[in-house]
């Protein structure tokens, strides 16, 4: 029952169905995002997690048509306030970008044009979508900088990006993204390039903005801690597909997919039993050119069995779903046994081959 993946759409702000992004390359068709579906309510925060290359960024960029590669093919449906983003013409989507849907990117160091002042760039954002005067836009820029916690905004507004620190630049980028009060903010790893203290400040800022501006947020990250901090719902992606999705508490307290287990146990927990090394997920994500036809995670899964040659669909509930063939009633038991094994053997890295299922070629990569 694949439809269970999408909770009934009431007043969902964004409703993505079967989003598929593929690229024609010299070595064949590469599918970066494969049949992704999710829905996002108003004022909701959705955390999308997964390793690098799992298709998190590509899927979000494709929603805004920010993928410029002429060889890219985007299929599916993404209804934003009832209108399909994928079917929109360039001009229509441009009117949405920055006004209805704002996006911020990972590296604040290079996100702003180096030759203009921060205030100029925020004012540019405002004036692109609203007819306000230069001075009014400048005043708004100062207000916005103040709101995101830039000290002395009246003076700093005339600074160039290189005169800001990394954390300040990310704040400025967020201020710019919020300039037109977008109903959706897509943040692509907004804290990854920042140090831990700054990270916490930026997250606190985003939490506050969600309340003040009433925006929904999609947060792309590979950091489970960040998701736990801020998200309402979690979407775990692996190799371009959804591995598990559901409300945060379900996914964190009763994770069902072995990949989610791996992600969760690789977060250090100060109060948990001591292990000498943090558990890892053996191997690395598959290249998009060679994703297994069955379950894409199977080559790295410790609980792989015959059924995994077939592709699992998202199933298992109304809101909390996963794509795995393991019996759902025994999942917690299986997970516990894996953890116990890891702790007793003291070297979780060696856990990579509990069965003989790992193919040499994949783990060697």
């Amino acid at each position: 029952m694949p439809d269970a993946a999408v909770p009934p759409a009431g007043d969902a702000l964004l409703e993505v169905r079967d989003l598929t992004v593929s690229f024609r390359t010299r070595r064949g068709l590469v599918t970066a995002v494969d049949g992704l579906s999710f829905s996002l309510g108003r004022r909701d925060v959705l955390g999308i997690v997964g390793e690098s290359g799992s298709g998190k960024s590509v899927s979000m960029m494709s929603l805004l048509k920010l993928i410029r590669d002429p060889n890219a093919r985007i299929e599916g449906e993404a209804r934003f306030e009832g209108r399909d983003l994928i079917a929109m013409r360039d001009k229509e989507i441009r009117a949405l970008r920055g006004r209805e849907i704002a996006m911020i990117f990972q590296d604040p160091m290079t996100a702003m044009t180096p030759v203009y002042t921060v205030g100029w760039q925020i004012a540019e954002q405002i004036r692109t979508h609203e007819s306000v005067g230069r001075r009014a836009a400048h005043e708004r820029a100062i207000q916005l900088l103040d709101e995101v916690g830039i000290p002395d905004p009246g003076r700093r507004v005339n600074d160039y990006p290189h005169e800001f620190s990394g954390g300040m630049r990310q704040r400025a980028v967020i201020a710019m993204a919020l300039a037109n009060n977008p109903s959706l903010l897509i943040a692509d790893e907004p804290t990854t390039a920042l140090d831990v203290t700054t990270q916490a400040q930026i997250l606190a800022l985003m939490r506050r903005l969600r309340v003040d501006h009433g925006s929904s947020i999609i947060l792309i990250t590979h950091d489970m801690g960040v998701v736990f901090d801020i998200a309402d719902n979690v979407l775990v992606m692996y190799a371009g597909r959804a591995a598990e999705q559901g409300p945060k508490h379900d996914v964190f307290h009763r994770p069902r997919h072995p990949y989610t287990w791996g992600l969760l146990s690789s977060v250090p927990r100060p109060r948990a039993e001591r292990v000498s090394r943090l558990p890892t997920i053996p191997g690395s994500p598959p290249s998009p050119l060679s994703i297994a036809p069955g379950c894409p995670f199977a080559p790295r899964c410790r609980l792989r069995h015959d059924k995994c040659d077939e592709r699992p669909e998202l199933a298992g509930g109304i809101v909390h779903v996963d794509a795995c063939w393991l019996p759902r009633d025994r999942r917690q038991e299986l997970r516990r046994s894996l953890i116990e094994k890891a702790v007793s053997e003291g070297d979780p890295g060696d856990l990579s081959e509990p069965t003989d299922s790992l193919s040499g070629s994949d783990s060697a990569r």
Partner: protein
Amino acid sequence: MLTFIGRRTAAAVLVLFTISVLVFLIFFATPGVDPAARIAGRNADPATLAQVRHEFGLDRPIPIRYGLMMQHLFIARDLSSFVNRGDLVIPQILHAAPVTLSLVIGAAIIWMVLAFLMGTASAAKRGTAFDPVIMLVGVVGVSIPAYWLGEVVNLFTQSRWHSGIFSWVPPLGYVPLSTNPAQWALHLLFPWLTLAALYAGIYARVLRGEILEALNEDYVRTARAKGLTERRIMVRHALRCSLIPVVSLFGLDFGALVGGSALLTEVVFGLPGVGKLTIDSLQNLDLPVIMGCVMYAAFFVVLANAVVDVLYAALDPRARRA
């Protein structure tokens, strides 16, 4: 910004001083070369040599000689040619400079406009047939030697079709801007185009490369996510940042051209500019004129570089602190 300009000017003055010392040393203090013999001409008698030596202060210590030379060159401005006695150096250069400046400035405007149009269009139309065609035109322009292109242009405008479509083209030569602006422009039109053809292609290429690189930058992605039009992204963001390296290239080329590198074009079109003056004085080994020309050239190269640095700082806020 003002401090920056001040510091940059001071540095330029220092560089000019150094160049003048070096040039002086090379021409008048090279061991084994007796400038007096050069000045007095071949087979001069010892009395003449001694007189020349005294007249030019060649029997004084080197620093004093340098001072005397600079005094003649810049303050009294009475340094005269060794070959054509009585021809003062400075007026010759002052006479030739406007010709070269007219030629180079006009050509520079044309080639920069062309380069902007070609480079931007080519970067914007990347992936279509338009892009390689423009770049090919650019390469052809770069590859054609100035003297050849100039001669071909002259062949058509001055003789073959002169009675037909090119009957409006005036004879070769130069008319000062102050005398008759229309004739000035008309006389310089083909020299401008010829010189511009050489540079437009290179600049278009450089600009195209820079724009394409800039279009891959994160800030362009941000600009797109802001909802800006492609045109605005191209002009206000990508092109604006691509200007920085183009400006520094331009400064070097412009300085060198004004300093005499436009020689071939000047000669082909019969323009009595600095390049022509330099080559003539070199052929006669006319040391004061050579030195005057070198100093003039150095002045423009250094000036152009200083202007470029100031422009650079105006274009790129990151450079202002340096």
